């Protein structure tokens, strides 16, 4: 089995230096369709999210910065920990399942010191790895 994990970075919506090429446009359209096809939410909620997407895309193009789908979700995250997890490509549910802790414990600031998460004597280090793993047990 390969030591590399599948990338969780998501699709690129705005390329490096804030450029918008044909494949980015395709990705944006596909992403908008994906948002609109989620059935549990009202049209207003979905349209609101798309409006925010358009604003963030414009801003990134203006700033000359890259944007991916996970980066977009990260921008809308409600707190620091959630943003870090989302930017790493994990939803809170997924991360807590993989770590074997509850969601509340994962989001509790007391369990964090910098990029280290400690729970029941176990410590995980959250840092960028070329292998694609978001966290490693110390």
């Amino acid at each position, binding site marked *: 089995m390969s030591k590399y994990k599948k990338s969780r970075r998501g699709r690129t919506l705005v390329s490096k230096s804030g450029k918008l090429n044909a494949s980015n446009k395709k990705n944006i359209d596909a992403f908008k369709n*994906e*948002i609109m096809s*989620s059935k*549990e*939410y009202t049209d*207003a*909620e*979905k349209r*609101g*999210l798309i409006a925010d997407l358009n604003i963030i895309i414009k801003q990134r193009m203006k700033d000359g910065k890259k944007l991916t*789908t*996970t980066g977009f*979700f990260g921008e*809308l*995250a*409600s707190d620091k920990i959630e943003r870090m997890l*989302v930017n790493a*490509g994990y*939803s*809170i*549910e*997924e991360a807590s399942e993989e770590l074997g802790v509850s969601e509340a414990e994962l989001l509790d600031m007391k369990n964090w010191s910098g990029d280290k998460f400690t729970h029941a004597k176990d410590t995980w280090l959250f840092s960028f790895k070329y292998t694609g793993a978001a966290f490693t047990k110390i």
Partner: protein
Amino acid sequence: MSLLEQTLNNRRKKHNQSRWYTKELKSLLGNTWAMFYAILGGRMTGKSYALMDYLCNQKRKKQDQCKLYWMRISETSTKFMLANKAEKLVDPDLVRKYRLELSTKGMNVYDRGKMFMQVMPLSAMGKLKGNAFFDKDYTGEIIIVLDEFQLEQGEKRTSFDILYNFIGMIENIARTTKNKIRIFLIGNTLEEASGILKAFNFLPEGFGRFYLKRKRCIIDNIEPTEEYLKDRKGSAADILGGNEMSNYTNELKKDLSLICKQRLTTPSYLIKFGKTKQNMFIVWDGNIITRYKGQAIKSSVAMKPYLDDRYNPERRQTVIDIFDAQGYKFDTLITLSYFQGELQKVRK
């Protein structure tokens, strides 16, 4: 749960938590191109409070470069607000927050002897006409608020046209000012839409924020949050009024079955309620009513005498009977609302 679902859930939670209007007002004010900001919402959402907070803040920041006008429809309500050193004008916690020491003289409210705000009734427009409100050398901002601009059900209909008086008031205060002016309209949504709302030629059929760029207007129709509905459950008002009263639920109840979007081919006749185009309606293909835009038409029905047209009480009654029997269809909700309003005036 995917990242998309997580984000949408978070947003929903946040929306439900933001029960008070303070945050929404900030995003509303970001639209600097707008001149009119209509805020419609159920009761207890903090509309007037958020706006008063904004006004106090602006006055503190800009001082002489900011003129504030607070309007109500009737003189009784302005008198009530101004009584006892404008006790009911600014909420007590805002008085504490901004350390206001209010005093009144006539319609003027002063803070520590300096002009703070003018509280005016729309009913006094005629009497205030010609007063020197406008200063041609003034370069600061003008903020006008018309509070409770929708008359309550059962509230005595005014003897004057609210829209006409409001326009008159704006004319008195701002003359031809186009920049640095913000006009706020606050009200509850009622079964009947007011004349002012109809003047924008738009009625919000759903909740949300509607941008009318050509009219420089934003209409914010606030959806009651779950928290508010939860809070209201079991309260005295809920027990007596139930959850159907629109000034709490903020729902505009209109019969959409009378709206017809089909193509119109032959104009049948004109229905006149007045001498101007605004008071005329044209009936197409026998039963579909639209507003009159100067089309050439021979046949007409005058709904009252002295309109420089033949007045026949029987034809007038026929129009009323057809409307009562829901025989007419309308191109838009706004036409229906206007037609209904004109018919009510004629039937008095």
